[in-house]
Every structure is written in C-alpha cells, then in structure tokens.
C-alpha cells in the first residue's frame, strides 16, 4: 500500500522538473516536451485525488487533459514546422518578433 501523498510529491517533483525544462531549454521541441511532462504530472495528481475522493471526476479530467494535450501538440508541432520552414531555426529566443 502506498500513501497517496507519495504520488502527490512525485507529481510535484515531475512538475517542477517540467517547469525547469521550460525555463532552461531554448529548443522549442524540448520546451514542448517539458510542457507535456508538466501536464502529465498534473494528471498523476488528478488520478491520485480520484483515489482519495472515490469519484470519477479526476479520471475524467485526465481524459480531457489528454485531449487538450493532443490538440496542443498537433497545433504546436505544426507551428514548429512552419517556423522552421520560414527561418531555419526553432530556438525560442529567435521567435520574439511577430514577423514571419
């Protein structure tokens, strides 16, 4: 038997690592992956909470998060491809201008 708090702490660690990734990496793809990691950490917390409250709400939220993540990745990667095509770089620091 595992205390739920362990899961929550693990979730917090993963979330922080994801946040760290967003902050330190300049590569748009890796930043994306870090965001996915953060979403996952949140999901883990949701499922853990489901166990505490004995309702389905948490799992259903995870379900929605997955759908949103899929949508986000589709659009995000399309953006990465489009940006790479136009400026041959996916360094997020170089994406500060609004010009294409």
């Amino acid at each position, binding site marked *: 038997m595992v205390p739920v708090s362990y899961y929550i702490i693990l979730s917090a660690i993963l979330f922080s690592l994801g946040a760290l990734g967003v902050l330190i990496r300049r590569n748009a793809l890796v930043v994306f992956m870090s965001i996915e990691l953060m979403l996952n950490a949140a999901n883990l917390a949701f499922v853990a909470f489901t166990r505490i409250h004995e309702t389905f709400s948490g799992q259903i939220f995870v379900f929605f998060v997955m759908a949103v*993540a899929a949508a986000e990745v589709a659009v995000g990667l399309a953006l990465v491809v489009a940006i790479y095509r136009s400026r041959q770089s996916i360094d997020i620091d170089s994406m500060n201008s609004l010009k294409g």
Partner: protein
Amino acid sequence: MSLELVLFFVLAAIAIATAVGMLISRSTVYAALHLVVNFVSVAIFYLLLDAPFIALSQVAVYAGAIMVLFLFVIMLLGLENIAGELEWKKLLWPLVMAGILLVEGVFLVLQRIGQNVYVGTTGTALSDPSLMARVLFTDYMLPFQVTAVLLLVAMIGAIVLSKPEKKSATPLKPDGAKEA
C-alpha cells in the same frame, strides 16, 4: 515495505530519472525517448491507482501518438542535434524558482493531506470503464462536446499551419505532377 511500495519507488526513480534525462540530453531524439519511458512509467502508476482505462489511454495517446509525432517532426526537420545550448551559468535562477515551486508543493501536500490515505490496486468500482463512461456522458457531457470541438479546431489549425506556402512549394513542378 510491501511489494507495491517497492514498485512505487522503483517506478518513481525511473520517472524522475527520465524526466531529468529529458532535460539534460543534448539530442532531441534522446529527450523524446526519455519522455516516452517517463510516460510509460506514469501509465503504470495509473494502473497502481486503479485507473486502467486512463493508463492504457496514456500509452496509446502520449506514447503512441504524441511522441511519435514529436519524433516524426524531429526527423522531418533534421533537428536531432541542437548542441551547446544548455548554459550552466544561466541555470541559477530557473533552478531556484523550480526549487521554490517544488518545496512549496511538497509542503502543501504534507500539510493538507493526512498520511493515512493509502492506495493500492483493490479492484474497486473505480477501475470499471463502463461506470466511468456513464459519468462522462452524463455529468460531463458539455465539456466532452467542447473537447470534441477543440480537437476539430486543432486539426484544422494544424492542417492550415503545416500547409507549405505557395512560394516555397517546389518550383520545378511540371504539368504532370499533382498534389498529394
């Protein structure tokens, strides 16, 4: 220490290690692969938490679709190696901020949640997907529909975005060639 606790720690170690690995790996392919392992280990956590439907969806959606897309884009654009971008000097502030975040989270967790809630695979009603579906399609019908619309919008958006601009389309296209 029960078997499940051991399993938890092993998996947690894997999850954290792969998350760190993703952060520091130089090749984006390796980053993606680390993340895949991370997702699979998280899926096993879901199994431990009596959420098999979510676990399998996690594998199918995250590991099977999203990360394959990532790999595809990496290989399509040839972005395997973006070297020398991790500068340790600039790392201080992000580290501090992430650390604060972590400490605060852990503190809150410890404060709010009693240690007495234990979980394990019990085969309770929570793992039955048909019950979950019942809730999903009654109480959460509206959000479900909204998600569907969101996915549709995302799909259209992705198609529009990834369509090559007119001028960069292959200029040498002779009369016989046709669109994909």
